[in-house]
Protein backbone atom coordinates (compact mmCIF):
# COMPACT_ATOMS: atom_id res chain seq x y z
CA UNK A 1 0.00 0.00 0.00
CA UNK A 2 2.87 2.33 0.76
CA UNK A 3 4.12 1.62 -2.75
CA UNK A 4 0.82 2.85 -4.11
CA UNK A 5 0.98 6.00 -2.02
CA UNK A 6 4.54 6.56 -3.11
CA UNK A 7 3.57 6.10 -6.72
CA UNK A 8 0.77 8.61 -6.43
CA UNK A 9 2.98 11.14 -4.68
CA UNK A 10 5.61 10.71 -7.36
CA UNK A 11 3.07 11.35 -10.08
CA UNK A 12 1.80 14.42 -8.27
CA UNK A 13 5.22 15.90 -7.87
CA UNK A 14 6.18 15.09 -11.43
CA UNK A 15 3.13 16.88 -12.76
CA UNK A 16 4.29 20.18 -11.36
CA UNK A 17 6.55 22.07 -13.70
CA UNK A 18 10.13 21.17 -13.06
CA UNK A 19 11.92 23.57 -10.82
CA UNK A 20 8.69 25.10 -9.62
CA UNK A 21 9.70 24.69 -6.03
CA UNK A 22 12.43 27.15 -6.76
CA UNK A 23 9.77 29.76 -7.11
CA UNK A 24 9.42 29.65 -3.40
CA UNK A 25 13.06 30.17 -2.74
CA UNK A 26 13.09 33.62 -1.30
CA UNK A 27 15.47 36.28 -2.42
CA UNK A 28 18.85 36.28 -0.77
CA UNK A 29 17.94 39.41 1.11
CA UNK A 30 15.37 37.49 3.09
CA UNK A 31 17.30 34.26 3.22
CA UNK A 32 19.92 36.16 5.16
CA UNK A 33 17.41 36.31 7.97
CA UNK A 34 16.97 32.56 8.03
CA UNK A 35 20.59 31.77 8.50
CA UNK A 36 21.74 34.51 10.85
CA UNK A 37 25.47 34.46 10.93
CA UNK A 38 25.79 31.63 8.40
CA UNK A 39 25.04 33.36 5.11
CA UNK A 40 28.13 32.14 3.34
CA UNK A 41 27.41 28.56 4.29
CA UNK A 42 23.87 28.86 3.00
CA UNK A 43 25.23 30.25 -0.26
CA UNK A 44 27.49 27.20 -0.49
CA UNK A 45 24.57 24.87 0.10
CA UNK A 46 22.33 26.48 -2.48
CA UNK A 47 25.21 26.57 -4.96
CA UNK A 48 26.00 22.88 -4.47
CA UNK A 49 22.35 22.06 -4.89
CA UNK A 50 22.15 24.13 -8.05
CA UNK A 51 25.10 22.33 -9.59
CA UNK A 52 23.45 18.99 -9.01
CA UNK A 53 20.17 20.31 -10.30
CA UNK A 54 21.49 21.84 -13.48
CA UNK A 55 23.70 18.94 -14.31
CA UNK A 56 20.93 16.41 -14.33
CA UNK A 57 19.09 16.24 -17.59
CA UNK A 58 15.45 16.20 -16.66
CA UNK A 59 13.03 17.47 -19.18
CA UNK A 60 11.21 20.64 -18.60
CA UNK A 61 11.63 24.32 -18.35
CA UNK A 62 14.43 24.08 -15.90
CA UNK A 63 16.18 27.28 -16.80
CA UNK A 64 13.15 29.32 -15.89
CA UNK A 65 14.49 30.28 -12.49
CA UNK A 66 18.14 30.14 -13.37
CA UNK A 67 18.53 33.88 -13.05
CA UNK A 68 16.65 33.92 -9.78
CA UNK A 69 18.79 31.22 -8.25
CA UNK A 70 22.09 32.73 -9.23
CA UNK A 71 21.45 36.46 -9.26
CA UNK A 72 18.93 36.79 -6.48
CA UNK A 73 19.83 34.03 -4.14
CA UNK A 74 23.35 32.70 -4.18
CA UNK A 75 25.15 35.88 -5.05
CA UNK A 76 22.96 37.91 -2.70
CA UNK A 77 23.86 35.62 0.17
CA UNK A 78 27.55 35.76 -0.57
CA UNK A 79 28.46 38.39 -3.14
CA UNK A 80 32.13 37.56 -2.87
CA UNK A 81 31.76 33.93 -3.81
CA UNK A 82 33.37 33.71 -7.22
CA UNK A 83 32.34 30.26 -8.44
CA UNK A 84 28.60 30.95 -8.79
CA UNK A 85 29.23 33.90 -11.09
CA UNK A 86 31.45 31.83 -13.33
CA UNK A 87 29.39 28.68 -13.36
CA UNK A 88 26.13 30.57 -13.48
CA UNK A 89 27.27 32.56 -16.49
CA UNK A 90 28.49 29.34 -18.08
CA UNK A 91 25.12 27.68 -17.69
CA UNK A 92 23.32 30.78 -18.84
CA UNK A 93 25.37 31.22 -21.98
CA UNK A 94 26.18 27.67 -22.99
CA UNK A 95 23.12 25.76 -21.91
CA UNK A 96 20.30 28.21 -21.61
CA UNK A 97 21.60 30.21 -24.54
CA UNK A 98 21.04 33.57 -22.92
CA UNK A 99 24.26 35.50 -23.19
CA UNK A 100 22.93 38.78 -21.93
CA UNK A 101 21.73 37.09 -18.73
CA UNK A 102 25.18 35.65 -18.24
CA UNK A 103 26.85 38.97 -18.83
CA UNK A 104 24.52 40.68 -16.39
CA UNK A 105 25.45 38.12 -13.76
CA UNK A 106 29.12 38.68 -14.43
CA UNK A 107 28.60 42.45 -14.24
CA UNK A 108 27.14 41.96 -10.80
CA UNK A 109 30.15 39.90 -9.83
CA UNK A 110 32.58 42.47 -11.15
CA UNK A 111 30.84 45.22 -9.19
CA UNK A 112 30.98 43.24 -5.97
CA UNK A 113 34.54 42.02 -6.46
CA UNK A 114 36.61 44.83 -7.89
CA UNK A 115 39.86 43.06 -7.16
CA UNK A 116 38.92 39.93 -9.09
CA UNK A 117 40.07 40.09 -12.71
CA UNK A 118 38.78 36.66 -13.68
CA UNK A 119 35.15 37.73 -13.84
CA UNK A 120 35.87 40.59 -16.21
CA UNK A 121 38.04 38.27 -18.25
CA UNK A 122 35.25 35.72 -18.56
CA UNK A 123 32.80 38.38 -19.62
CA UNK A 124 35.25 39.71 -22.17
CA UNK A 125 35.86 36.25 -23.48
CA UNK A 126 32.16 35.60 -23.99
CA UNK A 127 31.88 38.85 -25.90
CA UNK A 128 34.89 37.91 -28.04
CA UNK A 129 34.25 34.25 -28.64
CA UNK A 130 30.49 33.94 -28.71
CA UNK A 131 29.09 37.39 -29.41
CA UNK A 132 31.97 38.59 -31.60
CA UNK A 133 31.36 42.03 -30.06
CA UNK A 134 34.95 43.19 -30.04
CA UNK A 135 34.54 46.71 -28.66
CA UNK A 136 32.55 45.33 -25.76
CA UNK A 137 35.14 42.63 -25.20
CA UNK A 138 37.83 45.28 -25.21
CA UNK A 139 36.02 47.21 -22.49
CA UNK A 140 35.83 44.12 -20.32
CA UNK A 141 39.48 43.34 -20.83
CA UNK A 142 40.33 46.95 -19.92
CA UNK A 143 38.44 46.45 -16.71
CA UNK A 144 40.36 43.28 -15.98
CA UNK A 145 43.67 45.01 -16.69
CA UNK A 146 43.00 47.45 -13.86
CA UNK A 147 43.60 44.71 -11.34
CA UNK A 148 47.23 44.16 -10.35
CA UNK A 149 48.32 40.58 -10.85
CA UNK A 150 46.10 39.98 -13.84
CA UNK A 151 47.16 37.16 -16.10
CA UNK A 152 49.39 38.36 -18.98
CA UNK A 153 47.08 36.71 -21.50
CA UNK A 154 44.50 39.39 -20.83
CA UNK A 155 46.90 42.11 -21.94
CA UNK A 156 47.32 40.39 -25.27
CA UNK A 157 43.62 39.89 -25.67
CA UNK A 158 43.02 43.53 -24.96
CA UNK A 159 45.43 44.61 -27.58
CA UNK A 160 43.91 42.16 -30.04
CA UNK A 161 40.37 43.36 -29.35
CA UNK A 162 41.21 46.93 -30.18
CA UNK A 163 42.70 45.78 -33.42
CA UNK A 164 39.58 43.86 -34.34
CA UNK A 165 37.42 46.77 -33.34
CA UNK A 166 39.30 48.89 -35.77
CA UNK A 167 41.08 51.06 -33.23
CA UNK A 168 44.57 50.38 -34.49
CA UNK A 169 46.23 53.13 -32.53
CA UNK A 170 45.07 51.77 -29.17
CA UNK A 171 46.00 48.30 -30.27
CA UNK A 172 49.45 49.44 -31.31
CA UNK A 173 49.94 51.25 -28.00
CA UNK A 174 49.09 48.15 -26.01
CA UNK A 175 51.09 45.80 -28.19
CA UNK A 176 54.02 48.14 -27.75
CA UNK A 177 53.74 47.87 -23.99
CA UNK A 178 53.88 44.12 -24.20
CA UNK A 179 56.68 44.23 -26.76
CA UNK A 180 58.76 46.27 -24.33
CA UNK A 181 57.87 44.65 -21.02
CA UNK A 182 56.28 41.34 -21.77
CA UNK A 183 56.72 38.50 -19.33
CA UNK A 184 58.70 36.19 -21.58
CA UNK A 185 60.70 36.08 -24.80
CA UNK A 186 58.03 34.51 -26.93
CA UNK A 187 55.32 36.91 -25.81
CA UNK A 188 57.51 39.86 -26.53
CA UNK A 189 58.33 38.51 -29.96
CA UNK A 190 54.70 38.11 -30.86
CA UNK A 191 53.89 41.54 -29.52
CA UNK A 192 56.72 43.19 -31.42
CA UNK A 193 55.49 41.62 -34.62
CA UNK A 194 52.09 43.10 -34.03
CA UNK A 195 53.76 46.45 -33.40
CA UNK A 196 55.67 46.09 -36.65
CA UNK A 197 52.59 45.40 -38.67
CA UNK A 198 50.30 47.85 -36.94
CA UNK A 199 52.69 50.74 -37.28
CA UNK A 200 52.81 50.26 -40.99
CA UNK A 201 49.06 49.98 -41.24
CA UNK A 202 48.58 53.09 -39.14
CA UNK A 203 51.16 55.06 -41.07
CA UNK A 204 49.75 54.06 -44.43
CA UNK A 205 46.28 54.97 -43.32
CA UNK A 206 47.39 58.29 -41.93
CA UNK A 207 49.41 59.17 -44.99
CA UNK A 208 46.63 58.09 -47.29
CA UNK A 209 44.05 60.19 -45.59
CA UNK A 210 46.46 63.15 -45.62
CA UNK A 211 46.94 62.66 -49.39
CA UNK A 212 43.21 62.58 -49.89
CA UNK A 213 42.80 65.69 -47.80
CA UNK A 214 45.47 67.47 -49.83
CA UNK A 215 43.84 66.44 -53.05
CA UNK A 216 40.50 67.61 -51.88
CA UNK A 217 41.91 70.91 -50.70
CA UNK A 218 44.34 71.67 -53.53
CA UNK A 219 42.60 69.90 -56.35
CA UNK A 220 45.56 67.73 -57.21
CA UNK A 221 47.58 65.01 -55.60
CA UNK A 222 50.62 66.16 -53.67
CA UNK A 223 53.92 65.91 -55.53
CA UNK A 224 55.47 63.88 -52.78
CA UNK A 225 54.94 62.73 -49.25
CA UNK A 226 57.31 65.41 -48.06
CA UNK A 227 55.06 67.96 -49.59
CA UNK A 228 52.35 66.79 -47.26
CA UNK A 229 54.55 67.61 -44.33
CA UNK A 230 55.53 70.99 -45.78
CA UNK A 231 51.93 71.83 -46.37
CA UNK A 232 51.06 70.82 -42.88
CA UNK A 233 48.79 67.90 -43.68
CA UNK A 234 51.02 65.69 -41.57
CA UNK A 235 53.52 66.65 -38.96
CA UNK A 236 56.27 64.65 -40.51
CA UNK A 237 56.70 61.75 -42.92
CA UNK A 238 57.33 58.56 -41.04
CA UNK A 239 59.41 55.62 -42.11
CA UNK A 240 58.14 52.10 -41.84
CA UNK A 241 59.05 49.59 -39.11
CA UNK A 242 62.14 48.52 -41.02
CA UNK A 243 63.32 52.02 -41.61
CA UNK A 244 62.36 52.19 -45.27
CA UNK A 245 60.35 54.94 -46.82
CA UNK A 246 56.78 54.54 -47.90
CA UNK A 247 56.03 54.39 -51.59
CA UNK A 248 53.86 57.06 -53.13
CA UNK A 249 52.38 57.01 -56.58
CA UNK A 250 51.52 60.56 -57.57
CA UNK A 251 49.31 59.49 -60.37
CA UNK A 252 47.06 57.22 -58.38
CA UNK A 253 47.62 58.95 -55.08
CA UNK A 254 48.12 55.61 -53.38
CA UNK A 255 50.47 55.14 -50.49
CA UNK A 256 52.09 51.75 -50.14
CA UNK A 257 54.75 50.04 -48.15
CA UNK A 258 57.54 47.83 -49.31
CA UNK A 259 57.69 45.95 -46.08
CA UNK A 260 56.15 42.53 -45.67
CA UNK A 261 53.87 41.90 -42.78
CA UNK A 262 55.11 39.53 -40.10
CA UNK A 263 51.79 38.21 -39.07
CA UNK A 264 49.77 37.85 -42.25
CA UNK A 265 50.24 37.30 -45.94
CA UNK A 266 49.89 40.83 -47.10
CA UNK A 267 48.85 44.26 -46.04
CA UNK A 268 46.18 44.64 -48.64
Amino acid sequence: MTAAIEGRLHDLSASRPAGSHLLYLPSGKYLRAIAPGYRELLADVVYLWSIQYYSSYDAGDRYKYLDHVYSNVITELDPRYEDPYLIGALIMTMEAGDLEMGLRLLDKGIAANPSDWLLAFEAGFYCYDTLHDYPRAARYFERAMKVPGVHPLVARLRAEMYDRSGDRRASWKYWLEICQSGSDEYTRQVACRHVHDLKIQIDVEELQSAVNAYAAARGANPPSLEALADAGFVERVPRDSEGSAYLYNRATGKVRTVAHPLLRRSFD
Partner: protein
Amino acid sequence: MKLYAIAINTFREAIRDRILYLILVFALIMIGAGRAISLLTVGSEEKIMKDMGLAAISLFGVATAIFVGVGLVFKEIEKRTIYVLIAKPIRRSEFILGKYLGLALVLFVNLSIMTLGFYAVLWYKGFLDVTLGKAIVLIFVELLLITAIAIFFSSFSSPFLSSLFTVTSYLIGHLSWGLPLLADKLQSGPGRALCVVLYRVLPNLEYLNIKGEVVHGVPIGGEQVLLAAGYGLLYTALVLMLAIGVFRRRDFV
Protein backbone atom coordinates in the same frame (compact mmCIF):
# COMPACT_ATOMS: atom_id res chain seq x y z
CA MET B 1 42.22 32.39 45.14
CA LYS B 2 38.57 31.56 45.74
CA LEU B 3 37.37 32.49 42.23
CA TYR B 4 39.91 30.10 40.83
CA ALA B 5 38.73 27.30 43.13
CA ILE B 6 35.12 27.75 42.08
CA ALA B 7 36.11 27.95 38.41
CA ILE B 8 38.12 24.74 38.55
CA ASN B 9 35.34 22.98 40.39
CA THR B 10 32.85 24.15 37.78
CA PHE B 11 35.14 22.96 35.03
CA ARG B 12 35.38 19.53 36.59
CA GLU B 13 31.65 19.29 37.00
CA ALA B 14 30.94 20.52 33.50
CA ILE B 15 33.21 18.06 31.74
CA ARG B 16 31.17 15.31 33.32
CA ASP B 17 28.19 16.39 31.32
CA ARG B 18 27.88 13.99 28.48
CA ILE B 19 26.18 16.42 26.18
CA LEU B 20 29.51 18.18 25.88
CA TYR B 21 31.08 15.21 24.16
CA LEU B 22 28.09 14.67 21.95
CA ILE B 23 28.33 18.22 20.71
CA LEU B 24 32.06 17.91 20.19
CA VAL B 25 31.67 14.74 18.16
CA PHE B 26 29.05 16.35 15.96
CA ALA B 27 31.31 19.33 15.42
CA LEU B 28 34.21 17.16 14.34
CA ILE B 29 31.92 15.19 12.07
CA MET B 30 30.72 18.37 10.43
CA ILE B 31 34.27 19.58 9.95
CA GLY B 32 35.15 16.30 8.32
CA ALA B 33 32.01 16.33 6.25
CA GLY B 34 33.11 19.63 4.83
CA ARG B 35 35.85 17.69 3.13
CA ALA B 36 33.42 15.18 1.64
CA ILE B 37 30.87 17.74 0.56
CA SER B 38 33.51 19.90 -1.04
CA LEU B 39 33.95 17.15 -3.60
CA LEU B 40 30.52 17.97 -4.99
CA THR B 41 31.38 21.46 -6.00
CA VAL B 42 32.46 22.85 -9.32
CA GLY B 43 35.04 25.32 -8.36
CA SER B 44 36.77 26.02 -5.11
CA GLU B 45 36.77 23.09 -2.67
CA GLU B 46 38.66 25.25 -0.27
CA LYS B 47 35.83 27.66 0.25
CA ILE B 48 33.32 24.95 1.07
CA MET B 49 35.63 23.27 3.56
CA LYS B 50 36.46 26.49 5.29
CA ASP B 51 32.85 27.66 5.43
CA MET B 52 31.69 24.40 6.90
CA GLY B 53 34.50 24.21 9.39
CA LEU B 54 34.01 27.71 10.70
CA ALA B 55 30.26 27.24 10.80
CA ALA B 56 30.70 24.04 12.79
CA ILE B 57 32.97 25.70 15.30
CA SER B 58 30.62 28.60 15.67
CA LEU B 59 27.39 26.60 15.80
CA PHE B 60 28.53 23.92 18.16
CA GLY B 61 30.37 26.40 20.30
CA VAL B 62 27.16 28.33 20.75
CA ALA B 63 25.27 25.11 21.44
CA THR B 64 27.74 24.21 24.17
CA ALA B 65 27.62 27.68 25.65
CA ILE B 66 23.85 27.61 25.84
CA PHE B 67 23.16 24.08 26.90
CA VAL B 68 25.83 23.81 29.51
CA GLY B 69 25.44 27.41 30.63
CA VAL B 70 21.75 27.33 31.39
CA GLY B 71 22.14 24.33 33.64
CA LEU B 72 25.11 25.70 35.47
CA VAL B 73 23.48 27.80 38.13
CA PHE B 74 20.16 26.07 37.99
CA LYS B 75 21.64 22.69 38.88
CA GLU B 76 23.37 24.09 41.93
CA ILE B 77 20.15 25.59 43.18
CA GLU B 78 18.03 22.59 42.27
CA LYS B 79 20.39 20.12 43.86
CA ARG B 80 21.03 22.39 46.80
CA THR B 81 24.76 22.07 46.55
CA ILE B 82 24.63 25.82 46.77
CA TYR B 83 23.53 25.82 50.39
CA VAL B 84 26.83 24.85 51.87
CA LEU B 85 28.64 27.18 49.49
CA ILE B 86 26.73 30.30 50.42
CA ALA B 87 27.36 29.51 54.07
CA LYS B 88 31.07 29.85 53.37
CA PRO B 89 32.79 33.22 53.38
CA ILE B 90 32.39 33.90 49.66
CA ARG B 91 30.41 36.69 48.09
CA ARG B 92 27.58 35.76 45.82
CA SER B 93 29.28 37.71 43.05
CA GLU B 94 32.38 35.56 43.48
CA PHE B 95 30.23 32.51 43.13
CA ILE B 96 28.67 33.57 39.83
CA LEU B 97 31.92 34.83 38.40
CA GLY B 98 33.66 31.64 39.41
CA LYS B 99 31.05 29.57 37.63
CA TYR B 100 31.33 31.78 34.58
CA LEU B 101 35.09 31.44 34.43
CA GLY B 102 34.80 27.68 34.76
CA LEU B 103 32.49 27.54 31.80
CA ALA B 104 34.68 29.92 29.82
CA LEU B 105 37.50 27.49 30.40
CA VAL B 106 35.37 24.61 29.14
CA LEU B 107 34.56 26.60 26.02
CA PHE B 108 38.18 27.43 25.48
CA VAL B 109 39.18 23.78 25.59
CA ASN B 110 36.25 22.84 23.38
CA LEU B 111 37.10 25.50 20.84
CA SER B 112 40.74 24.51 20.84
CA ILE B 113 39.91 20.91 20.08
CA MET B 114 37.58 21.88 17.26
CA THR B 115 40.12 24.32 15.86
CA LEU B 116 42.86 21.71 15.92
CA GLY B 117 40.62 19.28 14.08
CA PHE B 118 39.73 21.97 11.58
CA TYR B 119 43.33 22.97 10.98
CA ALA B 120 44.32 19.33 10.64
CA VAL B 121 41.74 18.70 7.93
CA LEU B 122 42.78 21.86 6.10
CA TRP B 123 46.48 21.15 6.44
CA TYR B 124 45.99 17.71 4.98
CA LYS B 125 44.52 19.28 1.87
CA GLY B 126 47.02 22.07 1.81
CA PHE B 127 44.46 24.77 2.46
CA LEU B 128 45.73 25.79 5.86
CA ASP B 129 45.56 29.52 6.42
CA VAL B 130 46.26 30.79 9.90
CA THR B 131 44.42 34.05 9.38
CA LEU B 132 41.33 31.94 9.91
CA GLY B 133 42.36 32.24 13.53
CA LYS B 134 41.11 35.83 13.59
CA ALA B 135 37.59 34.65 12.90
CA ILE B 136 37.95 31.97 15.55
CA VAL B 137 39.11 34.49 18.13
CA LEU B 138 36.00 36.55 17.53
CA ILE B 139 33.86 33.42 17.65
CA PHE B 140 35.31 32.81 21.08
CA VAL B 141 34.41 36.33 22.18
CA GLU B 142 30.90 35.74 20.90
CA LEU B 143 30.74 32.52 22.93
CA LEU B 144 31.82 34.40 26.03
CA LEU B 145 28.99 36.82 25.54
CA ILE B 146 26.39 34.13 24.88
CA THR B 147 27.53 32.27 27.98
CA ALA B 148 27.14 35.39 30.07
CA ILE B 149 23.61 35.76 28.75
CA ALA B 150 22.87 32.11 29.48
CA ILE B 151 24.15 32.46 33.03
CA PHE B 152 22.14 35.63 33.50
CA PHE B 153 18.91 33.87 32.59
CA SER B 154 19.91 30.76 34.47
CA SER B 155 20.18 32.70 37.71
CA PHE B 156 16.45 33.16 37.82
CA SER B 157 14.62 30.88 35.41
CA SER B 158 14.38 27.22 34.53
CA PRO B 159 16.76 25.67 31.99
CA PHE B 160 14.04 25.44 29.38
CA LEU B 161 13.10 29.10 29.56
CA SER B 162 16.71 30.15 29.90
CA SER B 163 17.73 28.34 26.75
CA LEU B 164 14.75 29.81 24.93
CA PHE B 165 15.65 33.36 25.96
CA THR B 166 19.31 32.87 25.20
CA VAL B 167 18.65 31.47 21.74
CA THR B 168 16.32 34.38 21.08
CA SER B 169 18.99 36.82 22.15
CA TYR B 170 21.43 35.12 19.80
CA LEU B 171 19.03 35.40 16.87
CA ILE B 172 18.19 39.02 17.53
CA GLY B 173 21.89 39.73 17.92
CA HIS B 174 22.54 38.40 14.45
CA LEU B 175 19.47 40.04 12.93
CA SER B 176 20.28 43.40 14.42
CA TRP B 177 20.73 44.81 10.94
CA GLY B 178 17.04 44.23 10.30
CA LEU B 179 15.81 46.31 13.21
CA PRO B 180 16.35 49.75 11.66
CA LEU B 181 14.77 48.47 8.45
CA LEU B 182 11.79 47.27 10.42
CA ALA B 183 11.59 50.52 12.35
CA ASP B 184 11.44 52.46 9.09
CA LYS B 185 8.51 50.44 7.87
CA LEU B 186 6.51 50.85 11.04
CA GLN B 187 4.40 53.78 11.99
CA SER B 188 5.43 55.87 14.92
CA GLY B 189 4.37 54.11 18.07
CA PRO B 190 5.27 51.37 20.51
CA GLY B 191 6.33 48.92 17.81
CA ARG B 192 8.74 51.35 16.28
CA ALA B 193 10.03 52.46 19.66
CA LEU B 194 10.66 48.84 20.59
CA CYS B 195 12.72 48.30 17.46
CA VAL B 196 14.83 51.33 18.18
CA VAL B 197 15.36 50.35 21.78
CA LEU B 198 16.28 46.78 20.90
CA TYR B 199 18.71 47.98 18.29
CA ARG B 200 20.47 50.31 20.71
CA VAL B 201 20.50 48.00 23.68
CA LEU B 202 21.18 44.56 22.28
CA PRO B 203 24.63 43.73 20.98
CA ASN B 204 25.12 43.44 17.25
CA LEU B 205 26.68 40.04 16.98
CA GLU B 206 27.48 40.50 13.32
CA TYR B 207 30.43 42.65 14.40
CA LEU B 208 31.94 39.45 15.75
CA ASN B 209 31.24 37.53 12.56
CA ILE B 210 34.11 37.77 10.13
CA LYS B 211 33.87 34.23 8.85
CA GLY B 212 32.97 35.34 5.34
CA GLU B 213 35.79 37.84 5.21
CA VAL B 214 38.56 35.50 6.28
CA VAL B 215 37.41 32.75 3.94
CA HIS B 216 37.45 35.17 1.02
CA GLY B 217 40.82 36.47 2.08
CA VAL B 218 39.60 39.99 2.66
CA PRO B 219 42.25 41.56 4.85
CA ILE B 220 41.05 42.26 8.37
CA GLY B 221 43.29 44.56 10.32
CA GLY B 222 44.35 43.86 13.86
CA GLU B 223 42.60 47.07 14.86
CA GLN B 224 39.26 45.80 13.66
CA VAL B 225 39.69 42.52 15.50
CA LEU B 226 40.62 44.32 18.69
CA LEU B 227 37.72 46.72 18.45
CA ALA B 228 35.23 43.95 17.80
CA ALA B 229 36.64 41.88 20.64
CA GLY B 230 36.46 44.89 22.92
CA TYR B 231 32.85 45.46 21.92
CA GLY B 232 31.97 41.87 22.74
CA LEU B 233 33.86 41.86 26.02
CA LEU B 234 32.27 45.10 27.11
CA TYR B 235 28.81 43.68 26.58
CA THR B 236 29.89 40.52 28.38
CA ALA B 237 30.95 42.53 31.39
CA LEU B 238 27.62 44.37 31.39
CA VAL B 239 25.62 41.18 31.25
CA LEU B 240 27.68 39.63 34.02
CA MET B 241 27.06 42.64 36.20
CA LEU B 242 23.35 42.24 35.55
CA ALA B 243 23.60 38.58 36.41
CA ILE B 244 25.40 39.35 39.65
CA GLY B 245 22.79 41.94 40.48
CA VAL B 246 19.96 39.47 40.05
CA PHE B 247 21.76 36.68 41.80
CA ARG B 248 22.61 38.76 44.83
CA ARG B 249 19.03 39.45 45.74
CA ARG B 250 17.76 35.97 45.14
CA ASP B 251 16.15 33.79 47.76
CA PHE B 252 17.18 30.15 47.70
CA VAL B 253 14.03 28.48 48.76
